[in-house]
């Protein structure tokens, strides 16, 4: 167990440095990292000099790389031109909104996909199964952002039951009052629904096929042959084994949902890190974009590590490999 943990931890650290290096090299080889800042009239020479010194931008590349990493561990991600504030501060303000969207939606969508997928696989070829498989293939072809626009149009514009934009009514400040929570949840409902809907529908097919594979295994035939009731075979023998592949790709699901959050938050003007990606692109705020990429990629690595831990607890075979 301990060696397994250490191995996974080392792998995570390697992944982290690989990603950081890619980001660093890409950002450096595509132009002067100060170009946009220097061109901006609002920029004072003092701030420019501070950034230059902090990131060692007048020094050779390998020194720049080292100071880039040093700064990263100090939580220093550079300066956002658009917000005229440190990148880390901007991200810290936005990250809670995205995490509050992602964690519940990954949980709920996996649960729903599991329930529906098991049902489809168990009743393969039934009307329900065919309806789910067909809609899964169809909805996979629909652009994510357009699905979000469709939801916005139907529920916010035509029906008027959900707000048009934002995470709270303008002028409201986050507080722990019932009014604020109600207002927050009212704004939360639509982006959350889009994320869950899309993630569930894309997942169902995979779980269904996993279950169908499992149903072909010998131990299922044995379970039936020894006269177990269908229900017991379904839940205790088949469905339980379908859980393992679900957990192994949970990290990928998280990464996929980040992509979904970028598009969904943009459509609903939801002030999370996903929308921040869009804002950074539109405003050509490269430091901010780089910062968001580093933070979100790191969160993927952390999530993957935690999933590995859970997985090793659930499946003892992993620990002894």
């Amino acid at each position: 167990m301990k060696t397994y943990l250490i191995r996974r931890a080392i792998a995570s650290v390697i992944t982290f440095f690989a990603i950081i290096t890619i980001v660093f090299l890409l950002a450096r080889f595509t132009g002067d990292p100060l170009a946009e800042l220097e061109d901006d009239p609002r920029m004072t020479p003092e701030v420019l000099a501070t950034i230059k010194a902090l990131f060692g931008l007048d020094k050779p590349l390998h020194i720049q790389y080292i100071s880039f990493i040093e700064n990263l561990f100090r939580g220093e991600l550079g300066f956002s031109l658009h917000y005229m504030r440190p990148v880390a501060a901007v991200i810290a303000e936005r990250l809670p909104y995205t995490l509050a969207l992602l964690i519940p939606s990954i949980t709920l969508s996996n649960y729903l996909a599991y329930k529906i997928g098991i049902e489809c696989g168990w009743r393969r070829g039934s009307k329900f199964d065919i309806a789910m498989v067909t809609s899964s293939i169809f909805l996979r072809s629909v652009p994510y952002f357009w699905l979000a626009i469709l939801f916005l149009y139907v529920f916010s514009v035509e029906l008027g039951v959900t707000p048009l934009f934002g995470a709270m009514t303008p002028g409201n400040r986050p507080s722990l009052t019932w009014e604020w929570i109600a207002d927050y949840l009212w704004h939360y409902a639509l982006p959350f629904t889009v994320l869950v809907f899309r993630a569930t529908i894309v997942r169902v097919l995979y779980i269904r096929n996993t279950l169908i594979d499992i149903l072909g295994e010998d131990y299922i035939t044995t379970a039936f042959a020894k006269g177990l009731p269908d229900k017991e075979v379904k839940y205790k023998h088949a469905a339980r084994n379908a859980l393992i592949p679900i957990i192994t790709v949970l990290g990928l699901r998280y990464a996929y949902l980040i992509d979904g959050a970028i598009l969904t938050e943009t459509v609903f003007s939801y002030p999370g890190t996903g929308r921040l990606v869009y804002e950074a692109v539109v405003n050509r705020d490269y430091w901010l974009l780089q910062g968001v990429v580093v933070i979100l990629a790191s969160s993927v690595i952390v999530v993957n590590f935690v999933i590995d831990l859970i997985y090793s607890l659930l499946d003892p075979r992993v620990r002894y490999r």
Partner: protein
Amino acid sequence: MVSRLELSERMYTLRRSLNEFMFFLRHSRMTQVGIALLSAIVLMAVFADFIAPYDPYARVGNAMEPPSPEHPLGTNDMGQDILSELIYGARISLFVGFVAAISGTLIGTLVGIVAGYFGGVVDEVLMRITDIWLSMPMLLFTIFLASILTKLPSFTIMVSVILAIALTSWPGAARVVRSAVLGIKERPYIEAARAVGSSDARIMFRHILPNTVPILVVMVINRVAGAMLSEASLSFLGLGDPTAKSWGMIIHYAMIRNAVMLRMWWWFLPPGIMISITVLAVVLIGIGLEEYFNPRLRR
């Protein structure tokens, strides 16, 4: 040089596999629908000049007109005909989709063949990189790459978009090709090739690569769907070429001009429907081809 006998033999195998495919096609309704839809869209793209009622770049009406007999889908904020934009949009979406998918698959194939053929440390390192890249949020990095590549003076926006999609979408192909190569390289004729002193490069590209073609065809088709969706997402986020009218770009402009709030559904709904239909067509063909090459999947 290819001898005449060899040539006629090749023609024969080609004709036979074509016949086999036609036989398969006759029984696969899904593939038929996919091919019919995609052909229709390709024809629309090719003959856009004749089909489109107006030049999509010309001001042919007032701004933001609702649908009318002259403009079946109304006009946009510039007074351009939306239906004409939609018809021309097929060109960009198909072009970017196919070119990005093919280049991405080529990168993946190269990585997969080298990793599978050489094995050992090379394999270990390449597959570790592949896995890292595979575990990352793909769209996030595509956005990052596209916005950074456009800064390079030698790259046009479209080239940057294609490159960004290709550079983030190769890991899937690399994994699949590698596992295929692992099986192929154990075959006797590879050993024979090595015995007569063929170089590694020759064995990889002359003897192994042709055997992965069926997988590659399926890979490319599946990637086209993903690449078209990525292109649409990038354009929607404002990373596309603002002068090229892709479907994603139409939605981008509709969004920043508040078409949703103004209930101008004829502006933002049709481009999304076009993307969905095209992607669906490609997905259906992909499912069909997979069943054709892997008969075990057939029902």
